[in-house]
């Protein structure tokens, strides 16, 4: 061991200590991290890509600076020069005080939207390193209370908002009454297992109704699972792989129990990247099924000619691409294909698709009450973009983005409603013969 400081111990008797955090930091330093830190040229382009820096003007929000604790450990313990300096006692130490100071930078002022990674001229994946840094922050007891609460609830009740199946059952009853359709539950062997996010159950129940109607229209066999209905992953947001793996495992178990071929991630950005990209690595093996975002499935159905729509929205509509979907996963054209089905007056935001600006609420910022002022500050970038093209309504496909857009627009007194893309498609489905749907109607 080189000269790492001995922990002074946290004031309260917490199971999380500085030593435990430093061990978690070290365990995260792999080849890519070492390569990224050695290749940073200090150009500062990442600052110019970060809404938290641009809207506050405070240089401490420069993305690469957010990684300082991780960088110090790398430099001191994984480089020759750092080790030599360590013998002479010249290394700057990572202390509890430093981590307390960095907690805001790592959690409150970063939505892990990945715009910094996209623009970095030497290809450093900064947002991935923020994700890694969070591992050390959790283990040293420096995670924000809002995210700890969400993680505990997610593991103990199955939902970060503490929702239980009975709440969802109430929504299902409403939907079955209003549509006359049946919402399939625990059907084994169907094609698609649909996952939800709590936000959609509580704030946007129209989403589940829209899926029910579209899948009935397109003749898709699908189901919900009482074993696990929630795909959001608080473990990814707080930055802990143990919690994240546990939550992914629940989805996998539910899908395996029902023997489905595909799992659909809800309209929730990080739930999608968690289940689609991080999941197999977290649980250490490939899935026996495919994972899709609902937008991808809808676009496949559209391409197969299984979605028939009528009528067009005449309002001037614009689209917000969720970063997890567009920038991190390349789902960009699919939502535009679907918009073309139903919108005749569609205008792109100036920077969209891969280069869109984050709404400011992702990466756990929205579950972290303390970050509220920063979240609204970051939203100003989105607001400016929206003002530029003056849409009458905004469309998006992530419940967190949607909530943030609604709250932000209201905060800045802009009267622009926000709709989900799935609902928008459902509204334009060609009506089927009444005889076919009479069954089950009251």
């Amino acid at each position, binding site marked *: 061991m080189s000269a790492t400081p001995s922990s002074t111990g946290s004031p309260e008797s917490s199971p999380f200590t500085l030593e435990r955090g430093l061990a978690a930091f070290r365990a995260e330093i*792999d080849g890519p991290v070492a390569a990224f830190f050695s290749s940073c040229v200090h150009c500062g382009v990442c600052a110019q890509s970060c809404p938290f820096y641009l809207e506050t003007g405070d240089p401490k929000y420069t993305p690469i600076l957010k990684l300082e604790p991780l960088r110090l450990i790398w430099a001191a*313990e994984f*480089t*020759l020069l750092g080790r030599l300096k360590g013998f002479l006692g010249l290394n700057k130490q990572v202390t509890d005080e430093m981590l307390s100071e960095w907690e805001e930078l790592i959690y409150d002022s970063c939505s892990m939207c990945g715009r910094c990674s996209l623009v970095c001229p030497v290809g450093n994946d900064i947002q991935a390193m923020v994700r890694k840094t969070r591992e050390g922050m959790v*283990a040293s007891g420096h995670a924000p209370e809002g995210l*700890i609460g969400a993680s505990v609830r997610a593991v103990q009740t199955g939902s970060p908002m503490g929702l239980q199946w009975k709440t969802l059952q109430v929504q299902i009853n409403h939907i079955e009454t209003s549509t006359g359709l049946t919402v399939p539950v625990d059907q084994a062997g169907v094609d698609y297992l649909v996952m939800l996010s709590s936000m959609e159950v509580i704030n946007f129940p129209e989403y589940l109704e829209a899926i029910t109607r579209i899948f009935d229209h397109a003749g898709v066999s699908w189901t919900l699972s009482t074993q696990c209905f929630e795909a959001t992953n608080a473990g990814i947001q707080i930055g*802990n792989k*143990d*919690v994240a793996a546990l939550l992914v495992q629940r989805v996998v178990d539910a899908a395996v129990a029902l023997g489905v071929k595909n799992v659909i991630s809800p309209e929730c950005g990080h739930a999608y990247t968690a289940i689609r990209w991080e999941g197999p690595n977290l649980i250490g093996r490939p899935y026996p099924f495919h994972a899709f975002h609902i937008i991808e499935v809808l676009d496949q159905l559209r391409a197969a000619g299984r979605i028939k729509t009528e009528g067009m929205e005449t309002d001037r509509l614009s689209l917000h691409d969720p970063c997890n979907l567009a920038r991190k996963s390349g789902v960009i054209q699919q939502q535009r294909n679907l918009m073309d089905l139903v919108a005749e007056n569609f205008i792109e935001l100036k920077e969209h698709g891969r280069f869109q600006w984050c709404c400011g609420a992702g990466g756990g910022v929205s579950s972290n009450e303390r970050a509220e002022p920063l979240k609204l500050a970051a939203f100003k970038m989105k607001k400016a973009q929206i003002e530029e093209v003056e849409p009458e309504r905004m469309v998006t496909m992530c419940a967190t983005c949607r909530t943030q857009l609604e709250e932000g627009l209201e905060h800045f007194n802009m009267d622009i409603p926000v709709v989900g893309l799935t609902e928008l498609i459902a509204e334009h489905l060609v009506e089927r013969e009444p005889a076919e749907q009479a069954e089950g109607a009251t």
Partner: protein
Amino acid sequence: MRVFEKNPLEKGLAERLREHGVSRRGFLKFCAATASMMALPPAMIPAIAAALERARRPSVIWLSFQECTGCTESLTRSHAPTVEDLILDLISLDYHHTLQAAAGEAAEAAREQAMRDNHGNYLLIVDGSLPGPDANPGYSTIAGVSNYAMLMEAVEGAAAVIAVGTCAAFGGLPAAAPNPTGAVSVMDLVKDRPVVNVSGCPPVPMVITGVLAHFLTFGRLPELDEYHRPLAFFGQSIHDRCYRRPFYDKGLFAETFDDAGARAGWCLYRLGCKGPSTYNACATMRWNSGTSWPIEAGHPCLGCAEPRFWDAGGFYVPLSVPTGPAQDYLLAAGALGAVVGGVVATSARGRVKAEAAVRQPVTVEELEQKL
């Protein structure tokens, strides 16, 4: 194959090819292959076809010095009908030791006549290195003439010189330490004519023909790298184009020639592969009409197309490990740096593993205590 033809025919190439049963379609396929070999855009194919149709067959004189004939074998031992076969129809190979039917004085007379008739215009191809001007000329002579004298006489009227194979390009095996014959490369001797090095032991046959086709099409030599090698073929390292590269990136290495990693096709870097420092077209063109290539056959790259081939270190010693006695302080310092860097990297990797092993998983019960 026509060898020992004194006069280039005045007919256009396309006509000649048709006489030899090569269809128009076959000819265009050749042009397309040539364009893709030289990394030219497809729009160039008609231009190549037009240029080649008009081309008069340039006279080519092929001199073989201290060599093993592997380069000639490489060029001719390919499956017919191929680019290699066609290219020999493109040129008038007026003198070639191995291929010509004539022998003795008649052969040398043919060479002298070709040099006279095409003075200033012929291509001179050389394979093999040769004893330098200060070495004993007796180590290698042809018809009683030293290699050095023959080269210098032939260079006089050449439009350009193509050094085929690593011996001609960089000295190769004959120049390996202790270099008893005082062998030098063509580039060491020819200073007033353009020299193209088509290195490799042997060179990829399509690279030899590609350079010839480029010369015929455009009337000039292709763009070259700092070692005078055509960039179109030597622009990328074996490592960058290797199909085993993903294993290198993941850190999966075969440790012996018959371990599980070797059977699974993992990277051969630790078995001494010189792919990262070798520039050639093997990984993309492969050998024997695209059948395979050394790394696909399970053997590390030897770096045969690079300068100092044979003297650049042991075949089975990994690149980052210093090889042989250090030649000067700089090399010694570099080697020391590599060793220290390697030790630091190894210990850092061990460190991550150790820390990952002691990392305590975070449980929800613990998290709950924080609330």
